[in-house]
């Protein structure tokens, strides 16, 4: 559904492009995960989709049509994004916050319709956040906040959700809960595009993985194709082995300890 076609992005005064002819498709009904080391261009992909960085070349397409940034609302009705950073200088109540997911659907002075209320109620229910409606964002724990952000994205009601590092700072339980939720959304037919550091978790949930390295795709395909020890070792510049998760058989990465030698430091 979301297609990146030969997308290149170059930040002003940067020596190398942040994205260099990147092409892949995030289909409906599956989780597409973009992984890669820090600075590999993962977040730039999300910003390119949101029209927050100019493309040096290539295009981003939604259902075969190049996205038109003059119609951002239409885009927002189809694709919801949970970006990496969000500010809450003026914290809203959870009710108001999740309702903002309906922003692209409402006219300037239009009040929320029954449809809007249904979408909000469903999002709250799916994320299990209906119990803290009257609390404000600054009163939530990290895990609650991520669920609430997801609720806002679900309330947005499109058929794609793009998330940039949705589980950073979350403990195992909260992290799993988010991934299970995303898996559920994908099985409901949504296109879920996920930028993440969590290779092992991603390998268990994603149907398609894209490994970025210095703005280029190093490997793409099923987790089995991408999670190759040799590929990952060269991308992450660290010795590692890939094993199999004993319970479900999905590939899992184990970074190795290295003996302390002065010339073997991480670059």
């Amino acid at each position, binding site marked *: 559904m979301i297609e990146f076609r030969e997308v290149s992005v170059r930040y002003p005064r940067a020596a190398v492009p942040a994205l260099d002819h990147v092409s892949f498709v995030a289909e409906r009904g599956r989780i597409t995960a973009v992984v890669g080391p820090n600075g590999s261009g993962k977040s730039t992909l*999300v910003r390119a989709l*949101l029209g*927050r960085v100019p493309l040096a070349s290539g295009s981003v397409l939604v259902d075969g049509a190049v996205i038109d940034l003059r119609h*951002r609302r239409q885009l927002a009705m189809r694709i*919801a994004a949970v*970006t990496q950073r969000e500010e809450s*200088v003026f914290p809203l109540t959870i009710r108001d916050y999740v309702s903002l997911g309906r*922003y692209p659907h409402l006219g*300037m002075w239009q009040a929320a319709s029954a449809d809007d209320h249904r979408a909000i109620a469903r999002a709250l229910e799916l994320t299990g956040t209906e119990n803290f409606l009257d609390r404000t964002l600054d009163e939530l724990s990290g895990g609650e906040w991520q669920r609430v952000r997801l609720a806002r994205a679900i309330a947005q009601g499109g058929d794609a959700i793009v998330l940039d590092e949705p589980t950073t700072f979350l403990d195992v339980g909260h992290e799993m809960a988010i991934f299970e939720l995303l898996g559920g959304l994908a099985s409901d037919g949504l296109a879920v595009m996920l930028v993440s550091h969590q290779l092992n978790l991603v390998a268990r949930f994603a149907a398609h993985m894209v490994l970025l390295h210095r703005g280029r795709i190093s490997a793409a395909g099923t987790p089995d194709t991408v999670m190759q020890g040799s590929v990952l070792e060269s991308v992450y510049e660290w010795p590692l082995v890939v094993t199999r998760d004993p319970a479900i058989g999905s590939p899992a990465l184990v970074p190795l300890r290295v003996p302390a030698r002065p010339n073997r430091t991480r670059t």
Partner: protein
Amino acid sequence: MTPLRWTLLIVLLVSSMLIGVMFGTLRLGMHDVINGLLGHASEMNNSVVRTLRLPRVLLSALVGAGLGAAGAALQGATRNRLAEPYLLGVSGGAAVGAVLAVAFHAPHALIPVIGFAGALGAVALTLLVARAAGGHGDARTVLMAGVVVGAFANAAIMVALANADAMAVRGALWWMMGSASDASWTQVATLAAFVAVGLAILLAMGRAIDVLALGDDTAAGLGVNVARVSLTVYVAGALLAAGTVSAAGLVGFVGLLVPHIVRLAGARTHRSIIGSAALAGAALVVFADLIARIAMPPAELPLGAVTAIIGVPFFLALLRRLA
């Protein structure tokens, strides 16, 4: 904001306006005031109520409403609690205009007009500087540009004042400190139009500001054209502030303080923050103007000095709370 709180706010504003009309150097009873409003009192009392006090109270209310709403909107759009209506160079530009008017011996009646023009010029300059530095979409760039233009304005003021005569400097200084003492019905009508349009635009932008307050990327993901909405809010807020400046000079602290007060009172979404900041700002300035009129008879205090005296301790308390 609950309906009860909205009602209380309206009651607060209406009663501050009634008190504003009732009290002054001249003592008028309730009876005189009502008859004066209706035009049935003595000629003297009629004119005190209808020519002096009523336009003054209304002008103060409009100034407060404009500053409160502009401050609330600009704080939201820049995601900065310390943002205020004069942020984009409005105060510096207006002051430069006023001082130049004085330096070049322009008629005193032209000071507000030239001050307004100066404010607009400074806002345009700020936005151009911000644009050259990276775009209107980035709140931090706009804030920095405002600081730069403000510093430039200060320098220009000093140059212009170097040769002005003492009385004229005092007049310009008085105007810069803000005062509703020259209120006329014409000014009330002009500012009312300004506030109506500016407030309507900012209220219309209320939801977009809620989204903008979450950050630029999130706002873009929700379908907001960040650069365009920011620019609209900046321009509407700055015009509103410039309108109040041309009516009553620089009245500090109102636009900074009032949004914090209404947020503490429970306003969360920007439509309610902006609306209630307009009401609360109006009540605050009407009250401050009353103090300016009666605190030190027979002298009158500059309005901006009174709002600052009220505002500073209030703001310190707020900072302690927020810290």
